[in-house]
């Protein structure tokens, strides 16, 4: 085996086809999209080189700025929610429910497998107002409050989108973090307990530091996914009202497929890619310290 892996030609034969396929389906479209950022037009009208105009336009475009800020706001709030709720649930599975957590894990995980568009329509109905009043407004009325038109304002839509996304995804993060918590050696926990660490102190000084790698992976996973939010806001209120809940992805989609401007759409996609890269880099950098120190 060592002889085979030591032969460069053998490595080339073994890796070549997979590398070629990866290049064709992954790198070529990426480079293509990067090239498009210097053009304007679409496949029907043809493309015209316009230098860095798309980048200048992106910087000066108030709708792009609004979409960027919404994307960051949505991503930050959702990530915090997903990690806090997911970690809370994972701790509950390990320390409270223990072996009886199977049923709860399954129930909480269930929304993860539902299609986002179906969940979007479900929440649209739950928070509906008017003739087809949803249960949320019906409950408010029963408690003596007047109905709220959640989807008439950006803040209302944002609130519903966050609640919906957390309901849908917290089970997934709970399972992810639960797997990390199971890796903590029982002996370490036991010795911490013998040293008098219980409850919150045990979690703070033993559980969190030892589950930090999986916690970090979850944060990166959550941030990168939520920065690319698309179907949630599309299904819920189509990025509205106005463009108040339009993230960069939806703005890019509208620009390319609605307004047939492939060049500017690719520029928005490029900005999103850079943003994902920077966020990941920032999280990695900030975690490069010795976690065993106080």
């Amino acid at each position, binding site marked *: 085996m060592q002889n085979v892996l030591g032969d460069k030609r053998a490595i080339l034969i073994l890796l070549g086809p997979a590398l070629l396929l990866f290049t064709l389906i992954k790198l070529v479209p990426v480079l293509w*999209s990067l*090239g498009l950022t210097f053009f304007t037009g679409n496949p029907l009208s*043809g493309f015209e080189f316009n230098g860095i105009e798309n980048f200048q336009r992106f910087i000066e475009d108030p709708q792009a700025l609004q979409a960027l800020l919404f994307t960051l706001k949505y991503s930050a709030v959702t990530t915090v929610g997903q990690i806090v709720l997911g970690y809370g649930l994972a701790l509950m599975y390990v320390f409270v429910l223990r072996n009886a957590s199977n049923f709860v894990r399954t129930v909480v995980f269930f929304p993860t497998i539902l299609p986002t568009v179906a969940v979007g329509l479900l929440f649209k109905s739950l928070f509906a107002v008017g003739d087809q009043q949803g249960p949320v407004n019906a409950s408010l009325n029963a408690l003596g409050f007047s*109905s709220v038109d959640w989807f*008439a304002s950006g803040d209302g839509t944002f609130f519903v989108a966050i609640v919906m996304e957390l309901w849908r995804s917290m089970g997934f993060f709970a399972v992810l973090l639960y797997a990390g918590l199971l890796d903590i050696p029982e002996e370490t926990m036991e010795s911490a307990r013998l040293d008098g660490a219980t409850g919150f102190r045990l979690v703070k000084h033993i559980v969190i530091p030892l589950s930090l790698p999986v916690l970090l992976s979850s944060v990166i996973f959550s941030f990168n996914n939520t920065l690319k939010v698309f179907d949630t806001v599309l299904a819920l209120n189509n990025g509205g009202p106005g463009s108040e809940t339009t993230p960069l992805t939806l703005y890019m989609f509208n620009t390319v*497929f609605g307004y047939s401007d492939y060049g500017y759409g690719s520029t928005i996609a490029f900005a999103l890619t850079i943003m994902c890269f920077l966020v990941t880099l920032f999280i990695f950098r900030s975690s490069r310290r010795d976690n065993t120190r106080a």
Partner: protein
Amino acid sequence: MSIAANPLRKHPIAKLLAGAGVATLLLSACGANPGTTAAPGSEAKDTATAFSLLTPAENPIIRNEFAALAKDQCVSQDKALPLKAETVAQSDVVQKITLLASQDALPVSFVAGTAQVKPTGDLGKSGLAADYEKILTDLGVWDNILPAARSAVKAAYGGNMASLPYQFNVEGIFYNKKLLAEQNIKEPKTWGELVSALKKMKEAGVVPLTEAGSQGWPITRLLGNYIFRSVGPDALKDVQEGKAKLTDAKYVEAAQAIADLGAADLFGEGITSRDTDTANAQFLNGQAAMTYNGSWMLANINDPKQNKIGAENVGFMPFPAVDGGAGNSGQWPANAGAATALSAKSYGPKVGDWLTCVAENYGSSVMKNQSVVSGFRLNTPVENIPPLTAQVQGIVGEASETLLWFEALFDAKTTKDAQTNVSLLVTGQMAPKAYMELLQAGLGKAK
């Protein structure tokens, strides 16, 4: 080769440039070649193997009628070139047509974006959409298109006869006669009378004016009509030509009037998220007194399963006049439905036979089968037309001057901005001036 000896490894910028170069080469191969487009009718043979028809999934009228014609009056044409109907979601039309056209795979007849078929649009510029006027004139069936419908199509598509009037819709306000009579309200003739009537209906506990607010366009139609009535029928043409701006006082006043309707809660609860089915149901169940809509709503009104208030209880009136305005209520907003273009490359004798049959029979057939008013001449008399449909048919026949809709002359992005932000206008989250400034800025960028 060692890593250090590889120049690309040493210079990441060189790698980037190489990548960009590859992308540029790929792009240059991707652009369309307008010069290869054949002139309509120049092909002696048909290139199409079927009469492929791509229509919006949400509107079955055209494909249903083509299917009916294929089994009846156009049976021989269908035998020679079988009908093959396909659908596309309205929201995906521009994307789908752009990709099909760039792959030289356009259907024979297809729905297209309004901006695409104008002379300045991607299909118009490249000559991929045929000129129906030339083709139907050559076929000797041009007279089957009603003059009012011809001018409506040409006005919408920048002078191009890029579509056929498979539907000829006039728009106005449908009202519940019984509800208005109970409150002693006569058909409003002016904007002031309309607002008073709506306020009275609100006090009576019904939704005064229901609209599918989630769609945006039913509300921007009100805005456009107010502008046509106050400034005049050329108001939006003047904006397109730079003679006027949407930020001029008269235009902002119109936006203020629509914002005031929202502020007075005259659209009812949940206007911004109300969809078409809910709005139609509100009106047809008697929960709403009025709705602004197009004559395509006749299909719902004439359907007893949907209409619980009875077709005889539904009145239809024009958008009212604005006091001191330059427009009048005799000018009807009209349109010929979504652009349904013809592929210039697919045109041949068999397609010509289909078009001849359609031009001669579609008008009567669609009126008889679906009670739809089209812009085609009725060559076979149709009996038992419902009264409201007959009224609309009369309006279409007598209309001396038709109007376009608010966004008809806008580019795709400004159209979307108008329709998505109007919900902020009617809920008081965006000032009328700011709304018009947003749209004017969009128009400025598109030029």
